[in-house]
């Protein structure tokens, strides 16, 4: 990570995201590897370096906040800066209380606060020693929507003040996307892909990443032809055309997977390209859109999301003409 960035670590529950965070913080020791922060080596299995947590300049926000129940809000926040002289320490605590909209809460105890307030105290506590990186473990999972939105806004605000990197762990794709500039996608046991947010979203490295980032329609096919900037991909009975930026690594007869998000599949209009006929086999009503499942070949389904404002609900059992706009098709591993 360079400069001040927010990176999201995305992955399903139990896949090691929290462990990664704890290893960075020094609360867990990896078997092998190297961890470097701002040019300081925190851990190196080969060289036998393993800096204890207290010597790493890291702020950690635990999923359950982990506030000290026997200390006041003020003392919780001041815990990491006890070595500062009293005036400076109190000043910083007051500043943080202000930023977190917790003025006048200094003398209260954690048990007297709401979940959202406790989290803000935990955040203030982590920021007080001015760490070089802030680690957040599933910061939004325990909150209701309103509180979540406020916290997200606060986080973005803090981030503009905060001089260091921010790394947060989540299993929610939407959150990861909204708040980060870089993403790392994890699955049980390992890192699948990391990089700029847009790269992950638009150019997933493999099928697992594609699925984890919400691409539910993944088709396996063969490159049947390359003409100019257009690539044709044969899928069973039909073919799809797309215009990728980078044609260099594509060869005719190569096996390839393409994907498209459910939101981008359209009911046929005047388009000719990439259209197919499919039967609607299932439909679910969500809050503001319909989630349809179409079948267009033996065992090949397409998931389509159509906003309610686009028209009335489609009828199960009928066939419809669907189009997959080439600009929204993504090559997996491309």
């Amino acid at each position, binding site marked *: 990570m360079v400069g001040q960035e927010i990176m999201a670590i995305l992955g399903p529950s139990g896949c090691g995201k929290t462990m990664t965070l*704890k290893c960075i*913080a*020094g*609360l867990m020791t990896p078997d092998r590897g190297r961890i470097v922060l701002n040019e300081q080596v925190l851990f190196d299995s080969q060289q036998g370096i393993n800096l*204890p*947590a*207290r*010597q*790493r300049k*890291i*702020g*950690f926000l*635990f999923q*359950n906040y*982990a*506030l*000290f*129940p*026997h200390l006041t809000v003020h003392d919780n926040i001041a*815990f*990491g800066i006890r*070595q500062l002289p009293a005036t400076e320490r109190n000043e910083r605590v007051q500043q943080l209380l202000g930023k977190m909209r917790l003025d006048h809460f200094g003398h209260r*105890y*954690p*048990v007297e606060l709401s979940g959202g307030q406790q989290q803000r105290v*935990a955040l203030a*506590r*982590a920021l007080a*020693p001015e760490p070089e990186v802030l680690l957040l473990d599933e910061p939004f999972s325990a909150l209701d929507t309103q509180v979540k939105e406020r916290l997200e806004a606060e986080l973005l605000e803090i981030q503009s003040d905060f001089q260091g990197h921010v790394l947060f762990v989540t299993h929610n794709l939407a959150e990861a996307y909204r708040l980060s500039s870089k993403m790392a996608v994890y699955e049980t046991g390992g890192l699948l892909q990391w990089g700029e947010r847009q790269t992950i979203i638009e150019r997933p490295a493999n099928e697992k990443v594609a699925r984890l980032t919400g691409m539910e329609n993944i088709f396996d096919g063969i490159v049947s032809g390359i003409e100019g900037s257009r690539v044709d991909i044969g899928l069973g009975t039909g073919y799809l055309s797309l215009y990728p930026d980078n044609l260099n690594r594509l060869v005719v007869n190569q096996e390839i997977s393409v994907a498209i998000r459910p939101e981008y599949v359209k009911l046929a209009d005047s388009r000719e390209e990439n259209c197919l006929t499919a039967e609607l086999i299932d439909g679910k009503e969500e809050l503001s859109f319909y989630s349809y499942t179409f079948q267009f070949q033996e065992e090949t389904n397409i998931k389509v999301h159509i906003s309610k404002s686009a028209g009335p609900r489609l009828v199960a059992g009928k066939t419809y003409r669907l189009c997959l706009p080439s600009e929204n098709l993504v090559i997996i591993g491309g």
Partner: protein
Amino acid sequence: MAVMDLNPLWISLKTALVATAITFILGIIIARWMAGREFKGKSLLDGIFILPLVLPPTVVGFILLWILGRNGWLGSLFFEIGRPVVFSWSATVIAAAVVSFPLMYQTARGAFEQIDANIEDAARTLGASEWTIFWRVTIPMAWPGIAAGTILAFARSLGEFGATLMLAGNIPGRTQTIPVAIYFLVEGGRQQQAVIWVLVILLISLASIVALNYWKKYQRRFSSHPVREVTADS
């Protein structure tokens, strides 16, 4: 009625206080050490620490004699230097400490294990050394449990009889604690005097338990976990 010999009271109090101080320190250290770890034989070790709680006091007494008696492997050393353990006041303390240790250890360990590991980890990320964490986080959070264990240990020390009799004997003015005194007074037909001591013990024990429960209610305002109640199986 002749002026009653008040020695049992002083001896019992001294014994109980010293024994409790010993189990307090040892209990906390060992409980903290055991609370964090997983290792082979942990259950066995844990069992040994709890054993005096479930063994009949006479068995405990026998084992203590075997170790500290005149011919015992530790006792003989003391005998050599002219300070035998058996029938000394120290023996009352040892007997009391051994039987009350499990109570302190178990309660303290429960208190330590209830502490959310994340909280101690949080302290680490905030730059605290293990020592600081122990004094500023672990102990304050475990305090209700520790206080409970201490009072239970004190009450148990006060009430120790079987092992005390075997190791320390019934020497008035030296090792005759209140429970021992009660036994011999009843044996000797002096019920009235026995009743007085019985009331003394009842009062002290009851006061301890009440103080304990009151203290725990007061401490409860800090923690989000319910504090363990004093029950027969604590």
